[in-house]
């Protein structure tokens, strides 16, 4: 069996001194889309922050392809893992082109040739527009673009469907699936919306800072209890 892209074992983490995550075990295999679902305040964003070295890990290990990364600086971890945060996922007063240039960290010529503009034509079309003037869907496309353009081994998406209308939700879900295969990328996505189960290979259910359940996407999609207890709605 191959080494997982990300493997978290027995993780405890604090946020502003308060213990938020307890004994988290989670794994992302090569090319998988893994969903971390749970209600508001379950600890999803804290988990991502802990993996990225923003929040303090008090116990357990985080391994990227078998190498421990806990304790490394965020700037170092971000060479291998991209996190698209839930809010403020772009530089608001810079144009789309400047946002992508800064994220890619290469010459402008290399930026122009990047396949990101084929994956998201809207980024090419609006490249001279400031990020703060974009619509919700365009902003999400830019956030994904910033996450993808650095070609890391793992992409973490923190609630990418939050605040989007149903049409945009469908588009973003389709986009996540598409970029996963286009970029041969492993993706860990946190969500409250059950719609994410449509594309997830495996799912972890988190509540109160602990993993309550895990299983494959199909199994959880059909589990009445998950829908009622953890997602609070029907699929």
């Amino acid at each position, binding site marked *: 069996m191959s080494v997982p892209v990300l493997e978290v074992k027995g993780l405890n983490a604090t946020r*502003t001194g308060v213990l938020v995550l307890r004994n988290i075990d989670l794994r992302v295999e090569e090319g998988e889309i893994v969903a971390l679902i749970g209600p508001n305040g379950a600890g999803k964003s804290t988990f991502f922050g802990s993996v*990225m070295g*923003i929040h303090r890990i008090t116990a357990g290990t985080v391994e990227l392809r078998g190498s421990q990364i806990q304790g490394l600086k*965020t*700037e170092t971890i*971000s*060479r291998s893992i*991209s*996190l698209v*945060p839930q809010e*403020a*996922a*772009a*530089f*608001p*007063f*810079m144009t789309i082109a*400047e*946002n992508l*240039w*800064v*994220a890619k*960290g290469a010459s402008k010529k290399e930026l122009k040739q990047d396949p990101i503009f084929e994956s998201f034509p809207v980024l090419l079309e609006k490249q001279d527009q400031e990020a*703060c003037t974009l619509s919700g869907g365009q902003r999400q496309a830019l956030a994904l673009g*910033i996450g993808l353009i*650095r070609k890391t081994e793992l992409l973490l998406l923190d609630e990418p469907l939050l605040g989007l209308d149903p049409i945009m939700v469908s588009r973003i879900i389709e986009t996540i699936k598409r970029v996963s295969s286009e970029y041969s990328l492993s993706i860990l996505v946190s969500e409250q919306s059950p719609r994410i189960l449509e594309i997830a290979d495996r799912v972890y259910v988190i509540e109160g800072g602990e993993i309550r359940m895990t299983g494959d996407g199909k199994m959880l999609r059909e589990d009445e209890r998950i829908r009622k207890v953890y997602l609070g709605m029907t699929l």
Partner: protein
Amino acid sequence: MFWAIILKGLSLAGIYFLISFGVTFHYGVGGFPNLAIGPIGATGAFVTATFIRQGMAVPGALAAGLGVAIILGILIQRYVVEPLYNSVGGGERGRIFVIYGTFGLLLLFPAILLNIIPSTMLRMRLPRLGSVEIMGFPLGAYEIFAIVFAFCLLLITQLALNRTLYGNRVRAVTQNPLLGRLIGIDVRRIYLVTAAIASVCAFIGAVLWGEIFNLDLGSGVTFTLYGFVVAVMGGLGSIYGSFLVSLFLGMTLSATSFLIGGVFEYIVTTLLLIAILLIKPMGIVPTRREL
């Protein structure tokens, strides 16, 4: 008379811009209102003036003063500003803590200087470079340097911030430091580089001030005060705004001095600056730092 007002106004504007640049740049990038910037520049200038007095060659004395200013700027950023800002989780509370801490340094610096530097008032005594007559008005070489350097500084920072990758990274960190870290930017290093650049500009401003006027123990406090007046009027963090206000300040001081006498120059200037704040409370060029 007209050209005299313009040229004198430009040279004053150049000095005010150099002094305020440190404050503006430091606040613009890191959001840190560092009140110690004036004393940092003044201390460097004091070191230079003292060494020149003791017979050291001018380039060596300038290098020593510059080194002191840069080291002080970096140390204060690393061991005072950052810990104070982070102690309360950053944000507005963090900025208030930085103001308190650096205000303490602002008061402390003259006392420390008094114990180290033997003289309380120094003239820079840079080599005499003469003056140039422009439209019948003689302008000293260092006054010309202040004008030219200020324009170059504005031009270079605008070009660097907008055209280079590093400059765009600096802008990115200004707008969203967390995302900056998430895309691999060493945010702390950018803050330290910013502190060093701010200190260099404060030092150059202080040296020119010391050459054209005089340096005394309170000069650092004066530089911070002028720096903040210009920076606030311009729109805190806006380099272009600081430049415009420096021009306005220089021209007003010069015109008042020539037309109605030096006694009134600060009264008229203060009244005009209050008027600007009443009309544009966020400054001439308000900055947009956050979403």
